């Protein structure tokens, strides 16, 4: 069977994952290859202040607002990606 275009959601998800990893790696001065979905903030040396800084960067990059409650439960790269995906999906139509 000839591969067809992957479903759009996956493309977005992959791109989102990579963007999140790239942002975290850049901020923490890490090789992006060493940052995975399962990396925890603790493993990456991300303290509470660093996390606030990361959230600010994500909000700025994706033009979104991450509610404090959602932000507080983010402890790993996967948490971040899932959380951001939800905020992006809930965004009202026509939002940037």
């Amino acid at each position, binding site marked *: 069977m000839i591969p067809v275009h992957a479903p759009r959601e996956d493309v977005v998800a992959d791109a989102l994952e990579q963007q999140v990893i790239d942002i975290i790696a850049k901020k923490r*001065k890490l090789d992006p290859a060493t940052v995975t979905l399962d990396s925890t903030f603790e493993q990456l040396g991300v303290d509470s*202040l660093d996390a*606030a*800084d990361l*959230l*600010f960067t994500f*909000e*700025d990059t994706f033009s979104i*607002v991450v509610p404090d409650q959602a932000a507080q439960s983010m402890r790993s790269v996967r948490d971040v990606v899932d959380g951001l995906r939800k905020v992006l999906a809930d965004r009202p139509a026509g939002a940037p």
Partner: protein
Amino acid sequence: MRRVVVTGLGAVSALGIGVPAFWERLTAGQSGVRRITAFDPTGYIAQAAAEVPGFSTEDYFEETERELLDRFTQFAIVATREACAQSGFEVAEDERDRVGVAIGSGMGGVVTQDDGYRKLYGKGMTRAHPFTIPRVMNNAPAAHISMRQHLRGPALSIATACAASAHAIGEAAEMIRAGRADAMIAGGAEAPIVPGVVRCWEAMRVLAPMADDPAQTCRPFSRDRLGMVLGEGAGIVILESWERASARGADILAELAGYAATADAEHITQPGTQAPSRAITLALQQGGLAPTDIDYVNAHGTATRLNDSTETTIIKRVFGDHARRLPVSSTKALHGHAMGASAALEFIATVLAIRHGVIPPTANYSAPDPECDLDYVPNEARSTPVRAAISNSFAFGGLNAVVALKAV
């Protein structure tokens, strides 16, 4: 009560980075006041300020450090490094609980605040940067110095406007005297040259309009004085108990013999005469000094009409006949009024006057004012022995601090 001595000095000011540049230009009467470069001051009344020249933050801090440090904290850290190095100041692990920090600042991290407000109000952003609070907070320099030097004793910030670093140095000395600490890193830092702050000071109508030659804008005690000039920078000193300094064989630069703080309890901006006079008298008393022992007064000398005439009255009241023979100078003509850093820079100037037997001049002095009739050491530094000296600082709100220094 224990004796307190000064063993280290660090300065970042409009006269340059480091104490050698500060003292050289101070005694040469070379002003650091220039047209503002931090932003375009076109259309401002106060277009001149005493900016720190050539301060490249990347020369002193890694990128990740800079993110957390407002300009005023950067000045404080750079000056602290110099003071510690010059003093050979090292703190052993078992001493760390008894060494502290006291840093004055009038306004805190206003470079960060001004920039943040521009984005929130001007550009409609809805989130401030998460490092805004740690950068803006007035205690940021004290916190960063304690972290970097691993000092776990009393650490505090003092925010008494133009007298902040005099109070910081004085209260730090009191902690040593009282046995609550054996050494303190003390001083002040300020970086107020941003549009929002300059506009607010303009509104007070106390800033001098820029002179044709910007270096001549600030003219303390001179008949043609037109007001103060904002400055920036940091002054940091190492204070130690006499015992600690002697035991380690430190080069003792001067003794901080006396300190006093008083309040006018009168007016929010207009200076009084009684409480400042009492501050001088009390500082002399604590230092066991008679008025005639004082060979130099480093004046608050802001170059406003009111401050300089009032301060003259105060000096005459305290020193009586001795006031006629007493050299008084304001170094603000050269390093500007660096707010919370001013008193610390002036403290350093006073220590060095004692140390070198040279009194820095009141620059830009052109004509005597009948209301200011003392010896202001006009325009030329003067070589003369200085056995003891005082430095005055009188803040808005009528909060006064005077320190008395003595040769050792």
